[in-house]
């Protein structure tokens, strides 16, 4: 053990050396690289910490992001408007035709809904759980090819559930991952971490839709004898303890190669202005949470409402 005088001198020498060393250019560089490596390891070891931090930062940034997204959207709309002027008359004719078809489908849907209701009562089938929907605006997207996510400007304050499915009128977009006070992180179905249990509409073969950061996710784990045709529709199967209700439209098969079946999502993920976050009640929630949710007045939809699309 050193005598107190020498200990003091050593202490002084240490504190006069290391802070200066660390504040020097090389020291700061080494410290920054060391911190970066520690953060990378922490991201692997404690992903919840990363999600939480990200949510807090996006909460704080949501005002700036909304302000930045608004003029950009206006410019984009203006360009689309100008470039679309020449196609207006042909678009109008196509829309009239589509409208006539949709009217027929509407009548057919009403008829099927009534039939479904009477059949359900006939076999005493339990009613499907009620779903809650919150419509919200996309304020930011992940800039880069390393992840496919968007940030929407609705969170706990707007009663968004952490187990919500994000949809547009066309089909599934993804699911919520983190919900903070004023914003939510939606993982798109094209993200490499996205896995959705799906079923092929006609053959009823079940599989998993796996994102790979490309615009057309992969259909995996189909039975060996499954024959898949280009143009077949893919819907959610509602399997396991997932949050997806069965029968939600996902996409259409666009390419079939051995071990590489690609799906084009119905929803246009490049043009996401608004999305609907729907909680299908697929996860058990406590009574108190249910009461709190209903008290806050989230819009309530019947399960058959706008989630299904016309072929």
């Amino acid at each position: 053990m050193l005598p107190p005088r020498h200990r003091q001198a050593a202490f002084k020498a240490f504190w006069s050396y290391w802070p200066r060393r660390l504040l020097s250019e090389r020291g700061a560089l080494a410290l920054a690289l060391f911190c970066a490596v520690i953060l990378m390891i922490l991201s692997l070891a404690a992903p919840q910490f990363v999600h939480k931090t990200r949510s807090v930062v996006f909460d704080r940034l949501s005002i700036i992001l909304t302000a930045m997204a608004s003029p950009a959207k206006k410019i984009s709309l203006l360009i689309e408007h100008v470039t679309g002027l020449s196609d207006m008359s042909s678009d109008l004719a196509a829309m009239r035709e589509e409208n006539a078809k949709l009217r027929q489908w509407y009548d057919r849907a009403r008829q099927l809904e009534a039939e479904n209701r009477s059949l359900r009562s006939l076999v005493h089938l339990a009613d499907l759980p009620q779903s809650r929907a919150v419509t919200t605006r996309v304020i930011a997207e992940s800039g880069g090819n390393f992840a496919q996510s968007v940030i929407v400007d609705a969170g706990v304050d707007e009663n968004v559930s952490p187990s919500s499915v994000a949809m547009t009128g066309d089909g599934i977009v993804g699911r919520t991952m983190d919900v903070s006070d004023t914003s939510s992180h939606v993982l798109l179905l094209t993200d490499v971490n996205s896995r959705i249990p799906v079923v092929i509409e006609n053959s009823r073969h079940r599989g998993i839709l796996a994102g790979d950061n490309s615009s057309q996710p992969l259909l995996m784990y189909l039975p060996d004898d499954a024959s898949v045709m280009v143009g077949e529709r893919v819907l959610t199967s509602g399997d396991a303890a997932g949050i997806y209700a069965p029968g939600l439209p996902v996409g259409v098969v666009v390419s079939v190669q051995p071990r590489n079946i690609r799906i084009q999502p119905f929803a246009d993920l490049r043009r996401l202005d608004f999305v609907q976050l729907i909680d299908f009640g697929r996860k058990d929630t406590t009574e108190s949470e249910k009461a709190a949710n209903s008290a806050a007045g989230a819009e309530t939809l019947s399960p058959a409402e706008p989630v299904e699309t016309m072929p």
Partner: protein
Amino acid sequence: MTAEASMLGFLRGLALDFLPVLSVALLVLVTTIPTSLPPMTTIGGIWPLIGIAYWTLSRPGSMPVTVVFLLGLLTDIVTFVPFGLHGFVFVLARMTLIRQRRFLMGQGFWVLWVAYALLAAGVYTLLFLLTSLFQPGAVSYAAGLVGVSIAWACVPLVIWFLSRLHDMINLFDEPIA
């Protein structure tokens, strides 16, 4: 010192210290604006790199290692990648630029543009390798090069914007009478 002079001094300090950092932070946030571009056409980390490279070469004092690291952290947050990834890469990019600064400062715009292309390619490759460590096969290297090329093509525009900002900062940098 009069109140006017002290106010000018405060504004000057603010401009010198914060405007370069804010401009790069803005470049980070610009990549999050929802666009109708297909995936892989925006590489989040490449856009702030233009700002970091510009300020490191023209005003190295405004881009210390700690600031570059924090800007990297902000980029990690908004691009949904593991924390520390961009911090690591940006700090290395800054180190490279500081070492080559004497050579690069004497060169014309075309040489600088080519130098940025090399730097961006290196940064993207490193980002790709580090991301692959976390999620092997998650990203297509070739597809991302489209995004790098788009950012590279936009360098003159971003540099024009940053140089206007630099002119403004230089006004503040003149000694107060």
